[in-house]
């Protein structure tokens, strides 16, 4: 009860956001807002979970999209397996969901044990290297993953508890709920003892050790949780596209996620989500006007990083508070 009282505000915000998201599906028939929002749910979770590493704990990972992709592939492969669907019947989707998250957690624990001991430069590069390892496995293991082409043939989505995920409205509402729930969990983690321990480590890991914190263990736990959250993002994308694609495991996906965080600002809890919306919108607009979107996005990144030296959101917040004074 204490818990509810303590998080009252966050619970209200979550419920209201969820209601708004659902009403979008009920009142707007055109699929575009739903499609756009589902991609925000998915990549938003990637960015928000990455910010748990970068913003909360100061662990700059350059390979976070690996876990996003692993979640998607695990989910897709499980459901494409006829025996699996036969065995679990109408519970296939929830069970595949949970299993995929757990598989990702296990994999990230193995990677994490190797990586969390290293200093920040090594950590960034190593997470990147392991991401490219996963990418090369996905691309070369054609018989299982479909290689370059991605997971083909669609992902079966047997209905469960009256929810039919092949229906676009059902799917959208399901994804909204999962998304809001995950963001809520991240919020609780951020305000919990664990969240503050992460801040200690980010600020000064040596001192943290000297007040009795098990630094490596805490970092590892954080790494695993963040990876599992990213895998949920991947699962949402797999549900949405009814497939999984090697690009999700490619390094540029991680680079993009880092830029989303920077755009929105690492210091604001919801910042990465704002960053996701900004970058997705920029991407969509650039793709309409230019066939060289990488070039344009690259230039935009340079301008933001070298020109503003902080996220757009932080930049404008500072401008506003400056004017008020």
């Amino acid at each position, binding site marked *: 009860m*204490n*818990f509810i009282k*303590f*998080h009252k505000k966050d619970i209200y915000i979550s419920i209201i956001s969820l209601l708004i998201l659902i009403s979008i599906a009920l009142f707007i028939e055109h699929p575009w807002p739903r499609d756009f929002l589902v991609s925000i749910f998915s990549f938003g979770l990637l960015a928000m979970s990455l910010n748990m590493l970068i913003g909360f704990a100061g662990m700059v990972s350059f390979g976070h999209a690996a876990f996003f992709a692993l979640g998607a592939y695990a989910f897709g492969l499980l459901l494409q397996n006829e025996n699996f669907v036969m065995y679990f019947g109408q519970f296939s989707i929830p069970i595949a969901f949970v299993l995929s998250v757990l598989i990702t957690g296990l994999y990230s624990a193995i990677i994490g044990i190797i990586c969390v001991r290293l200093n920040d430069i090594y950590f960034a590069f190593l997470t990147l290297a392991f991401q490219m390892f996963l990418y090369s496995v996905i691309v070369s293991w054609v018989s299982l993953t479909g290689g370059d082409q991605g997971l083909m043939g669609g992902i079966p989505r047997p209905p469960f508890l009256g929810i039919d995920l092949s229906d676009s409205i059902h799917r959208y509402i399901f994804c909204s709920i999962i998304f809001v729930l995950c963001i809520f969990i991240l919020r*609780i*983690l951020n*305000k*919990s*003892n*664990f*969240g*503050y*321990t992460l*801040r*200690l480590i*980010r*600020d*000064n890991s*040596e*001192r943290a*050790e*000297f*007040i*009795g*914190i*098990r630094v490596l*263990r*805490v970092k590892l*736990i954080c790494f695993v*949780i963040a990876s599992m959250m990213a895998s949920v993002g991947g699962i949402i994308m797999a549900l949405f596209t009814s497939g999984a694609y090697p690009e999700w495991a490619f390094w540029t996906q991680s680079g993009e996620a880092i830029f989303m965080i920077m755009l929105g600002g690492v210091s604001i809890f919801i910042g990465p989500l704002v960053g996701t919306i900004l970058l997705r919108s920029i991407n969509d607009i650039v793709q309409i006007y230019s066939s060289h979107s990488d070039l344009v996005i690259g230039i935009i990144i340079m301008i933001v990083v070298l020109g503003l030296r902080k996220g757009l959101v932080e930049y404008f917040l500072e401008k506003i508070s400056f004017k008020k004074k």
Partner: protein
Amino acid sequence: MLNIKNINKSFGGVVATNNVSLSFEEGSLSSIIGPNGAGKTTLFNLITGKIKPDSGEILLAGENITNLSPREIVLKGIGRAFQIANIFPTLTVKEALMASLASRLGISEKLFKPFYSKDLQNKSEELLDTLEMNDISDDLCSNISHGDQKVLDIGLALSLEPKVLMLDEPTAGMGPEERWQMVSTIERLWKLKNVTLIFIEHDMDIVFKISQKINVLRYGSLIASGNSSEIKKNKEVIDAYLGEDFESI
């Protein structure tokens, strides 16, 4: 309480600690002095497990703690503040103490337990009272004055309720007035908490005023150990501090 036996440590060719043996009585207030580079901080690092000795033993209340990790040593009851205030820039003073208290209570890894609990808040307010830092409790650690940062560093160590409290140059970088304020804070905390307190200090006035026992290091070796009057008369110490007139202090 704390016994150091024949500790040695060298870095490459530099002998930073040369066969040092020392003991600190329970509840005593001792100081370690010596010229720059004498190996004082190194000795602290050895005791607190930040670096491992090449040989020798460290005993805390009879228990061998030589090869434990910094964290294990902290939990055994040796708290430490650093030569350069070692704090958490983006947390507020109160949050830093609360987080440290959470660690003491063994709840720092609780994933879903709200950090701003009544219990932690009350405990941290008590500690803020003890440290006389109530008025700056909501300031960011990076924004408070240098002196306050040093006090907070001590507070972080104290929050773990240590048996032995080790302070590395608590008055470093302070003006005269601030210095003596710090000295009275140290004395007050020592009496209040009943800890065994060891501090490193360059200011001889302070050293002679408050230490019950003074240990002098030079080139990594312990050259003298005793109370103020003994140290003031010691020939080797006078040599080490050539030019300083001890008798007059």
